[in-house]
């Protein structure tokens, strides 16, 4: 066992007094049941009633957020698309695909954030507004981490482009500047706006030098005294060498040019070019990467990773990925200045800068309130072939472990279970058994829902589950007196025993009512009739009725006889069958041949000779026996007469 990574969180349950009473619990697949027992702490049983409730404890509460449902659903599509991604894609095209997938995930997070933002604004009571804004900050942290991971692990940007990506990253997440920009530009004289210099500083800090230059030219227009200085600084901004995506210059060239530019800035500062204007001078210092000057702008930088990126931009523009962690660590230390300790988010980002993927995922698992983030990020990184060496000390690898956790959370949800199926599908080791365990617990409220669950099971050849679902539905139908439905379900499940049971019900109903119900089904059984002997009998017996109804007496008679001689008909039903033979025996023309009549007689004798062996006579039975005896006598008479007629007829036919 590894040691714990932190104190486990205590969840207090309202109404349960764990100090006084002992508690009991049971694990479910995604949740836990907790209730008070009647035992007190000392182990004595008390009769005083405690808390009368059983509590369901769920760990993945984010699953229950209405807005996050969109995140789950939309990212499900991306996830499935990623799993289907061509394995044979290699090199550049594969990387481009993976980056696109990563961006898709991020845009879903951002869409959720935006919606959450709107809801938070519209929220009427402060409590829910607060809840929404805390979720927004979680989402935004998720996006921030994901974006950094995308740059470092998926894009794997080399020195040079790396910094451009990091700049984009910071610009995307420190975005108050845009509203400020609009505000300042919208005012009558922008350079007189109270936040003018703040704005220019932020623009410079974010490396948006073109915009900063435009702002400076506004200042130059407004105050002729500083126009010259503004122009000089503007020129410095314009001439700063940067790597542009389409440019073919080498890193060495860039470094050389940058060195020259840097020296020029330094010269201007030493010459005191900007000395008359403290604002311009501090801008120049920032552009020189002066740490003290940068730290003065702590407020505007707002966090250490912004500080890091600005510092890199103006002092190490061609930083190599391998050196990042060194600058990151020192930036963090400088920025916090020993005043506060790093927060979980800082640790996660730092781990990313150190290229320690496992640490990133571990910290995220601890810090975030849902499995969505780690499950999807880990899966994506796994597709980048970054995690293969890592196996956990239990069960499966990390990717699978996290996906299983996430999918179990989905299955615990009333409606999101359908999403979970695809996640289980892509867990090679334990996915199948988990799915089997969870799918059986889905309540089957309507047949339509049952059909959807069935389809899931059938597609995966989960025969055991298919049988059990069909059986549940068949049982339900029997309880509701829907024999036709019950029979179709047991046919679908190929459940012979249950088909026999339902067939018996049909036959019993027939004996009671004298007519069949659900003819539309029984007449159309087709090959399914072979499922069980009783069902075959039911179908054939119905066929006999149809033949009889169509006045095809000869066919009907031989079918009836064969039902008994082939032993398909249950013994208990023979009397009914023999009684059915009566009208055929009484027809004007001879239907049963002599041989057939002998067979019938033997059946009747079989039946009557076996009879007295069992049963104590009671008054009701005696009365029944009376009817029975009459029936038997009538049958014997009819059979005898038929035999006589048949012998005569057959004899005369042969003679002629």
């Amino acid at each position: 066992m590894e040691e714990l990574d932190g104190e486990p969180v205590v969840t207090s349950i309202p109404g349960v007094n764990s100090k006084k009473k002992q508690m009991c619990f049971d694990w479910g697949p995604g949740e836990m049941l907790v209730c008070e027992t009647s035992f007190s702490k000392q182990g004595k049983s008390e009769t005083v009633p405690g808390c009368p409730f059983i509590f369901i404890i769920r760990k993945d509460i984010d699953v229950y957020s209405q807005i996050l449902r969109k995140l789950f659903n939309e990212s499900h599509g991306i996830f499935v698309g990623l799993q289907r991604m061509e394995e044979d894609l290699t090199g550049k095209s594969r990387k481009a695909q993976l980056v696109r997938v990563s961006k898709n995930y991020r845009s879903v997070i951002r869409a959720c954030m935006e919606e959450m933002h709107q809801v938070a604004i519209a929220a009427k009571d402060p409590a829910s507004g607060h809840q929404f804004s805390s979720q927004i900050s979680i989402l935004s942290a998720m996006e921030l981490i994901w974006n950094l991971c995308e740059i470092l692990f998926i894009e794997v940007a080399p020195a040079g482009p790396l910094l451009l990506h990091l700049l984009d990253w910071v610009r995307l997440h420190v975005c108050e500047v845009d509203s400020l920009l609009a505000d300042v530009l919208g005012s009558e004289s922008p350079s007189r706006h109270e936040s003018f210099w703040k704005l220019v500083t932020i623009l410079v800090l974010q490396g948006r030098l073109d915009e900063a230059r435009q702002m400076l030219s506004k200042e130059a227009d407004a105050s002729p005294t500083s126009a010259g200085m503004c122009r000089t600084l503007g020129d410095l901004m314009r001439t700063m060498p940067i790597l542009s995506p389409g440019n073919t210059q080498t890193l060495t060239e860039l470094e050389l040019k940058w060195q020259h530019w840097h020296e020029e800035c330094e010269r201007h500062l030493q010459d005191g070019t900007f000395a008359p204007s403290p604002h311009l001078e501090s801008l120049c210092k920032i552009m020189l990467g002066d740490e003290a000057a940068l730290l003065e702008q702590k407020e505007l930088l707002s966090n250490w990773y912004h500080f890091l990126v600005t510092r890199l931009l103006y002092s190490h523009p061609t930083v190599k990925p391998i050196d990042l962690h060194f600058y990151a660590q020192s930036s963090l230390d400088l920025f916090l200045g020993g005043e506060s300790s790093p927060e979980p988010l800082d640790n996660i980002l730092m781990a990313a800068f150190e290229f320690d993927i496992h640490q990133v995922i571990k910290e995220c698992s601890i810090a975030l309130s849902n499995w969505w983030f780690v499950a999807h990020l880990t899966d994506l990184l796994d597709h980048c072939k970054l995690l293969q060496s890592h196996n956990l000390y239990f069960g499966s690898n990390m990717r699978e472990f996290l996906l299983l956790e996430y999918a179990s959370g989905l299955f615990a949800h009333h409606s999101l279970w359908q999403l979970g199926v695809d996640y289980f599908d892509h867990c090679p080791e334990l996915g199948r058994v988990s799915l089997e365990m969870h799918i059986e617990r889905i309540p089957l409220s309507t047949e339509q829902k049952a059909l959807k669950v069935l389809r899931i099971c059938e597609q995966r050849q989960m025969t055991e589950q298919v049988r059990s679902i069909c059986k549940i539905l068949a049982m339900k139908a029997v309880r509701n007196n829907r024999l036709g439905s019950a029979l179709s379900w047991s046919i679908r499940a190929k459940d012979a025993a249950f088909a026999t049971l339902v067939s018996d019900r049909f036959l019993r109903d027939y004996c009671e009512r004298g007519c069949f119900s659900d003819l539309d089904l029984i007449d159309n059984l087709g090959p399914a009739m072979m499922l069980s002997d009783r069902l075959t009998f039911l179908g054939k017996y119905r066929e006999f009725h149809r033949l009889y109804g169509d006045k095809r007496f000869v066919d009907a008679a031989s079918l009836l006889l064969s039902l008994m001689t082939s032993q398909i008909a249950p013994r208990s039903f023979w009397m009914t069958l023999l009684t059915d033979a009566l009208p055929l025996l009484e027809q004007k023309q001879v239907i049963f041949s002599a041989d057939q009549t002998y067979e019938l007689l033997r059946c009747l004798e079989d039946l009557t000779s076996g009879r007295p062996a069992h049963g104590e006579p009671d008054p009701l039975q005696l009365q029944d026996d009376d009817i029975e005896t009459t029936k038997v006598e009538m049958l014997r008479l009819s059979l005898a007469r038929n035999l006589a007629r048949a012998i005569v007829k057959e004899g005369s036919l042969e003679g002629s």
Partner: protein
Amino acid sequence: MEEIYAKFVSQKISKTRWRPVPSGSLQTAETFATGSWDNEENYVSLWSIGDLGNLDSDGGFEGDHQLLCGSRHYGDVMDLQFFDQERIVAASSTGCVTVFLHHPNNQTLTACQQWATAHYHTGPGSPSWSCAPCTGVVCNNPEIVTVGEDGRINLFRVDHKEAVRTIDNADSSTLHAVTFLRTPEILTVNSIGQLKIWDFRQQGNEPSQILSLTGDRVPLHCVDRHPNQQHVVATGGQDGMLSIWDVRQGTMPVSLLKAHEAEMWEVHFHPSNPDHLFTCSEDGSLWHWDASTDVPEKSSLFHQGGRNSTFLSHSISNQASVHQSLISSWLSTDPAKDRIEITSLLPNRTLSVNSLDVLGPCLVCGTDAEAIYVTRQLFS
């Protein structure tokens, strides 16, 4: 067909229906209703796809559909039909049938009529009683016909508290869908692959005609009747097959077309352009079947860059003229197979597409992935 808008709505959508446009008006569809299922709280909701003329310059929400109003619905919404412009009939898994009234003035949706126990099971011991899901509903002002898992058919009139006519045990298995054939005849499909025609003029519990698939009794899930040729009927089955039937003759389908890989949940003829048919399925696909004649230009139209407008008008006029001569394009069995052109409308497969509806150039569908897709350029 590139303009298809998706919106995630945080509820699994079981049904989507366009509000009918007043006959004779030139309006295009702009409001649709949805029903949800398998949520802890289910809703019937009305959505507006807004004004096409009001293109947002930001490119923001111009194609998005916005929620107008909704109403809580007890149980899953199993089926949904517009009764008229204002009223919607919803079938519930609790066996209840509810008529909702839309008040456009203050954008609210309220239940105005309800048959609480339209469908129910009677247990083996007679007094015991439990609700049975109502699986299908069809309206023809003022009549409403409902079918359910209990195999019962109910005929309601919107202004009557009690059912006008009930056929108990009309079917031994579950009835999955119902549609009007020609008044007063209805058509039902059931879970053992049968198509039954019922005539309300006849007394008794027997259908006037039974048509069925051969042998294997594959359940049928949906049915739609050709809008102009009332004897042509399309059904979709559990195996994803599309069957075309001519109810005037024979008891077997005229043609069986291999379609989806899983249950076909809905099939719809285009109401004004019935050579086009739309199907959706559990396998997450939505298909457009085009049985109009083989216009050679059409293949170029379906190319991504079909921007040539002369092609467009040409092929449309062509379609219109050909339409007259091809009265039964769905019934001519063998050649039809070559002629039918199938397009998949959804960009990538998701979870089950449970429902779709077409009206004019507009299509709406809803999925288990909690998304509603809308397009307003079906034939472009």
